[in-house]
């Protein structure tokens, strides 16, 4: 087998056009992974729905034109006019789901993005400077980790009021220490490696040592964590709006809240729980599958 790989290597070397950077190889592995194709398709599907919601939705999601059909004991389910039925306010469920994708995806992506960027910043500072800076940042993250995220979310909502911003902050903040720790620890691991020692002995300046050598090689676990945590962020965001932390305006469609509003109507209109629930489930699954593919592509142990 080693003879074969040696030959393949030699062949590759003879072809001047195919330089394979790690990034390119990872991308190639992602594209060949069925998990990534399924996950990616789901993600793209929901993103397209969110982007083109006004064109796709058959009705205005806030219009309660069909309120006269709502009875305390019966809410119309799927029909020819309303594919996913009506909700408890007499609005078209499908249109609300389509517009709800906007809020749900936005909150998930935004909160994770904020958490990851802020976490990466603190991790970078801790990992680059070490010493007391590192100790200080790590003790602060310990404190953040010790606060239950639900409690944090409730306090944030109490301070800035019920809004989507509250949910974004509440989902973002608990992510900060996770990302900070992850980047720091992988930077510490990379710093021990010979290529960093080598760059030091070459006389490379500290800034370029960190930014060109340590950080690029420390980002893989961050990327994996980010893509896997996206599904958690979307579920958490839905859970928080289920608990009533979202926008104070009940007309704004959002999957978590749509689910929350229907708990007491489960036996009357099960479709109102099923559709948003399935939407959350499939979206989270899509991000999870894709994240798993990213992990497989970047994991050095699985690399040929």
């Amino acid at each position, binding site marked *: 087998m080693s003879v074969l790989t*040696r030959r393949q*290597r030699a062949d*590759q*070397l*003879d072809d*001047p056009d195919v*330089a*394979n*950077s*790690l*990034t390119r190889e990872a991308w190639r592995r992602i594209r060949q992974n069925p998990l990534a194709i399924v996950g990616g398709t789901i993600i793209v599907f929901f993103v397209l729905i969110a982007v083109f919601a006004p064109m796709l939705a058959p009705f205005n999601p806030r219009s309660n034109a069909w309120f006269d059909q709502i009875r305390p004991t019966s809410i119309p389910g799927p029909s020819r006019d309303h594919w996913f039925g009506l909700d408890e306010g007499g609005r078209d469920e499908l249109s609300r789901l389509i517009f709800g994708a906007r809020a749900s995806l936005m909150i998930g992506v935004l909160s994770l993005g904020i958490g990851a960027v802020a976490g990466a910043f603190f991790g970078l500072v801790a990992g680059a400077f070490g010493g007391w800076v590192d100790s200080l940042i790590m003790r602060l993250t310990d404190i953040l980790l010790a606060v239950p995220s639900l409690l944090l979310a409730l306090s944030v909502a109490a301070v800035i009021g019920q809004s989507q911003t509250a949910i974004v902050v509440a989902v973002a903040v608990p992510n900060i220490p996770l990302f900070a720790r992850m980047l720091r620890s992988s930077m510490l691991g990379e710093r021990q*490696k*010979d*290529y960093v*020692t*080598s*760059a*030091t*002995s*070459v*006389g*490379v*300046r500290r800034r370029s040592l960190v930014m*060109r*050598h340590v950080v*690029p*090689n420390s980002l893989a676990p961050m990327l994996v964590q980010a893509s896997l945590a996206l599904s958690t962020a979307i579920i958490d965001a839905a859970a928080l709006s289920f608990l009533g932390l979202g926008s104070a305006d009940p007309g704004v469609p959002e999957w978590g809240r749509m689910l929350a509003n229907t708990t007491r109507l489960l036996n009357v209109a099960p479709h109102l729980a099923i559709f948003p629930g399935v939407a959350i489930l499939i979206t989270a699954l899509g991000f999870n599958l894709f994240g798993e593919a990213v992990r497989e592509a970047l994991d050095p142990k699985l*690399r040929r």
Partner: protein
Amino acid sequence: MLQVRNLQVHFPIKKGLVFDRTVGAVRAVDGVDLTIPRSTTLGLVGESGCGKSTVGKAILRLVPLTAGTVTFDNLELSALQNEELRKARRHVQMIFQDPYASLNPRQNVESIITEPIRTHQLRTGAAVHQRVNELLDSVGLPRGAASRYPHEFSGGQRQRIGIARALAAEPDLIIADEPVSALDVSIQAQVINLLADLQEQLGLTYLLISHDLAVVRHISDTVAVMYLGAIVETAPAETLYTNPQHPYTLALLSAVPVPDPVVEDSRHRMVLQGDLPSPANPPSGCRFHTRCAYAQRRCEQERPVLRDLEPGHQVACHFAEEIAVSISATRGGDVVL
């Protein structure tokens, strides 16, 4: 000429959750003297954990020095700080053991090799690219390798990239820390010969750190044997292998197998008992007395210093002469090692 005087590297052992207390020190290097004349090779041998790699790193100031001086030509490396040190490091470069860990996986070969050139502005403009080609030629890699990434190469090729990177800084001294021990035997010879050729062409000075006695013998002018943070014997390469004096060197050499069953059977084997003592708590007196077959009272109390047995041959043993006599008495003449 590289001169190392009384080099000491002690790593503090710290305890405590918030306020670190220093509760002791690992004496990785504890008083090492080395002299390497220009354009020669010193082989530094010893078993794992004896501090030989730390000596290499200490010369480059990659670990903090506890005491001692390192002087290269007229440059006192051990006195430099910050920017001065950063600039001076160019004159001393290192080749690493693990050809997989020593190259940044996200840099292509050209970027790896040009890093020293750009950092120290040794070439500018088109001359940089020209220099990369020169370096690739001199380490025996195809020029097309420049745009490749490290994972596309075999271990031996990667080691050549590492050598090209070291040469790019135009150093005078190269510290090669186990440069071939991660390679297949067939590749080892190629890399060692490459190092020898480069020395001849460029007048390089080498400090070759290895546990492989055969490799060291092949390329070194002088060999120093290290045990638990100190040098126990240093001699011209041939002398050390044919006429070893320190009991530790005797034991090391007797562990090298000889590919001849008759000689192998008649050899005087010295098998060392026990493990290397902890450098955090080294034995009193002679560091080697806990494992030495010839240890006497004096060895426990007094630490032997390196002394000249004959010009160029130094041994740190109180009883080197007596041991030599007793061995030739029991063996009745030449010792085959």
